[in-house]
């Protein structure tokens, strides 16, 4: 299932983002964790940023997902986040936001 989703996403990114995608439930927790862990190289261990890059810890899944989607659309200006965000479908954004917000 996940493989299909990924291919579909690659072929039709506009459709996926525009249509709101599928729900986060279709992304396995392991896959969501694999995606989300990559964020912490910039945002700090478990999102606890020690420096200039905004922290993610303590933020709600809704806030993280909406920020991500706004960076992706360009509605919210960014330096690098817009470029990253374009690599994820709505379902993936929701899943990784849920994972990040679940960390203590």
């Amino acid at each position, binding site marked *: 299932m996940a493989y299909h989703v*990924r291919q579909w996403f690659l072929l039709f990114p506009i459709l996926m983002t525009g249509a709101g995608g599928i729900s986060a439930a279709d992304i*396995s927790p392991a896959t969501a964790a694999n995606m989300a862990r990559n964020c912490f*190289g910039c945002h700090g261990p478990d999102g606890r940023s020690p420096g200039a890059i905004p922290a993610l810890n303590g933020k709600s899944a809704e806030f993280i997902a909406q920020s991500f989607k706004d960076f992706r659309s360009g509605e919210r200006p960014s330096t690098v986040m817009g470029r990253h965000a374009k690599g994820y479908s709505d379902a993936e954004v929701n899943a990784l936001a849920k994972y990040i917000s679940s960390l203590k």
Partner: protein
Amino acid sequence: MSKLTRRDFLKLAAVAGAASALGPVGALAAAAKGGKQVVVVGGGFGGATCARHIRRADPGIAVTLIEPSKQFITCPFSNTVLGGLHKMADITRNYDTLRNKFGVNVVHDVVTTIDPAKSMISLKGGQSLKYDRLVVAPGIDFKWEAIAGYSEKASLVMPHSWKAGPQTVLLRQQLESMKNGGVVVVAPPPNPFRCPPGPYERASMIAHYLKQHKPKSKILILDAKDKFSKQGLFQAGWEKLYPGMIEWVAGSKGGTVVSVDTRRMTVQAADKHKAAVANIIPPQKAGAIAASAGLTDASGWCPVDPKTFESTIHPGIHVIGDASIAGALPKSGYAAYSEALMCAASIVAIFKGEHPGDASFVNTCYSLVGPKYGISVAGVYRITDKGISEIEGAGGVSPKEADEAFRESEARYAQGWYDSLTADVWG
């Protein structure tokens, strides 16, 4: 060298971790329960991340990290030391947190042999260690023979400074002692090599130093390539910050360095150039231990499964970081970190007989053109039938047209990136 029993391993673990309170406890507890043993070779961005995140995900797994140095000096941000923005202490990390907080058994020794058939490694100190899974993260080594007259000894006169440490200090000292008006040659290697934007950030940081202290000096980049990472952004930045100071010669225009003369301080490309300081960065290959263990192919790098980073030559051994052939991922500290996270998740899942989930990789690299002028490249990667591939439409470099505030933000985020990344590896 004798084969190590479990009891010997415990003794070794206890001795190696004697300085820490929690380190050996974690390793001992795991070993005592008959838990799995992972040995990680190399404590850089890839190796240290993998060791940390295996222990974090499953404290029942004993992880031993073999790293010769007690301190790790990062290549990322080493150019800022050359530019005078930072001191060596700012780019130096240690293994205390890995040992004390994550219970990694850190052993400061050198791996002499890897025996895939026996699942065993030998250390220079005389011990041998058995593993259930081995992670090899040796970084790069140089093809010294590629440039006539260049060698490890020659690098004491014409530093490569492509492994951070004494070579970084040496190049900085040479810049400090050169006369105003001299030529600094920077010679980047052909692809593939560690940190694709690195030589050009280096030229930028050297220019930053020279502009303040030796403004009549020039930087001559003698390149083996015809194009380079973030090229348009670098060149626009040089024009703005250091007009007329940096000249880049492409490989096809006579840039490729064929020989050096350390006595006369000359660098031979299509023309012979006299250098006040010569930074020669030789062509590269996987770290020596990867080749001696038979993990490399004809390219000199290590072929791996794109998801788990398990060697396609020797099952049970994973190769991560610069030494691996990682598809579209560059040889960068961040890519090594991302690969290490996926490798760690895979090893934990393999031991449990579970599925590690779909693989996902990210690269983010900042370069400083000036202290307040940052540029970046980003990429999001998944596995396709072509291996690790970059997702089209995502990633890419900073916009060509951007105001000063944007570049300044990226310079600030470059520091934030460094602080966060090193915190999730060693901090």
